[in-house]
């Protein structure tokens, strides 16, 4: 097989993998924002928290899978505690105060991370049986773990779609995004629904941080980095739209990957140029509703 073509294929796979990972984080963000109306700048911090927990728990108990099992619920608990203690007080306030408060939260999380885990960059070992690489040519091969990551993200995406589209809970969530009062009038405790959505969003972000760790390492600032890109994905896809987040994430994942490889001079810009272009064409994102 022609090496050039294989190289291109590898980039496509990488782009899709990045996109799928981005989708996990962005879907949580779009759900929380679209349904609860909460702008949570600290969403990236949950991603970082997931990664650092995975790293330290893996060192402690030696098993990547076990640490995953413990760290996700742990992060969810932290997230729910934050929702109860802080976010709930902001429902009636201007969105901007949420922005300011969660900005303060980012600072707090960053420093806590620095105090607890230090500032070094850490690698996380790829779990044993996934260490192999599939050879594609004499010189190029593709890591099995990356394929595994993509598969897992895809499965989760499918699960989310099922949840939102097919289950009564999903219908309730979608209804709550449009008319909170009416949902309550039907006898449904919208507060519980909101808490579930929040927990789900946090879990997705933390899980993403964890499975990305063997590939992307664990480093300070990883939360901010993924946060900005996730917001771009949410905006491109349209706020509150899982479908949009999926498409947007893939677009961004591919654009960023190809940008880095084929046009490194403008690599950083591609994501933003793409977003600006989409917004010019569709001022409310691909699947968003104007006036959100």
């Amino acid at each position, binding site marked *: 097989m022609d090496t050039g073509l294989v190289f291109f294929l590898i980039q496509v796979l990488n782009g899709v993998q990045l996109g799928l990972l981005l989708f996990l984080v962005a879907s949580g963000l779009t759900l929380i924002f679209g349904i609860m109306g909460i702008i949570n700048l600290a969403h990236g911090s949950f991603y970082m928290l997931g990664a650092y927990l995975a790293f330290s728990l893996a060192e402690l108990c030696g098993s990547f899978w076990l640490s995953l099992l413990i760290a996700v619920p742990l992060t969810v608990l932290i997230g729910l505690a934050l929702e109860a203690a802080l976010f709930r007080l902001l429902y009636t306030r201007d969105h901007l105060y949420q922005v300011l408060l969660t900005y303060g939260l980012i600072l707090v999380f960053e420093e806590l991370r620095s105090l607890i885990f230090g500032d070094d960059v850490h690698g996380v070992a790829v779990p044993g049986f996934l260490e192999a690489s599939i050879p594609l040519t004499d010189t190029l091969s593709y890591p099995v773990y990356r394929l595994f990551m993509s598969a897992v993200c895809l499965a989760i995406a499918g699960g989310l779609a099922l949840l939102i589209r097919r289950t*009564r809970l999903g*219908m*309730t969530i*979608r*209804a709550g*995004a*449009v*008319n909170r*009062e*009416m949902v*309550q*009038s*039907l*006898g*449904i*405790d*919208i507060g519980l629904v909101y808490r579930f959505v929040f927990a789900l969003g946090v879990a997705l972000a933390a899980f993403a941080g964890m499975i990305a760790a063997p590939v992307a390492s664990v480093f300070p600032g990883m939360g901010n980095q993924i946060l900005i890109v996730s917001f771009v994905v949410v905006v491109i896809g349209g706020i509150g739209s899982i479908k949009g987040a999926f498409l947007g994430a893939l677009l961004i994942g591919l654009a960023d990957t190809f940008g880095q490889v084929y046009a490194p001079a403008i690599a950083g810009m591609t994501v933003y140029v793409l977003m600006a272009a989409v917004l010019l064409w569709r001022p409310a994102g691909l699947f968003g509703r104007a006036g959100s």
Partner: protein
Amino acid sequence: MPERGPADPPLVEARGLHTFYGPSHVLHGVDFSLRRGETIALMGRNGMGKTTLLRSLLGLTPPRSGEVFIDGRNMTGAPPHAIARQGIAFVPEGRGIFVTLSVREHLVMAARPGRDGRRDWTLERVLATFPRLAERLDRGGALLSGGEQQMLTISRALMTNPDLLILDEATEGLAPLIAKEIWAILRQVRAGGTAVLIVDKNVAALAAVADRAVVLVKGRVAFAGGTAELMAQPEMVHRHLGV
């Protein structure tokens, strides 16, 4: 219909409600009671407090003072979903359609058994009663006509198998033919033993379907009694309702 004696507590009872909308004092010491199976027409000109009274009973706009009892239980200040769970369903003015859900999803999402565990209104029965909806089962809520949306809101409320159905201006803006269908459906609901509390502009149609009437004037109860009694006083009807 089973005999209901005066010993049963009213299904809904409110005493001395004072409700504010922001700074504006809308309800001034309103008393209200509704018994099981009764149909009450809530009447009054625009801005007299009818919707506010409904919202106070439902917990959507909690009163600043006064008490609300549902089936003998003090539900003052309870959250709206808890009040709804007591068997009360709301068909609001403006219909409250979920634009991102289909007709089927509206009905499935709302479905639950009544307080006594009975399921008189199943999806099948609802679709049989509202054939227009059955034809548009997978259509999005936003793509329905006004009349169809109203049917959807009513049927969604019925899917919760309520003991009390509250309707706020359910026939507003609808063609007379569709309005007639809605009145017919309400008679059916009545016949099944469900209580109905209805706000509407059509005084004649209200009089035909309601047992009792409550007239609100400037946030106070100007009349509470049998519908026939009210209609026998045309000057009162004219003065307070403008017809």
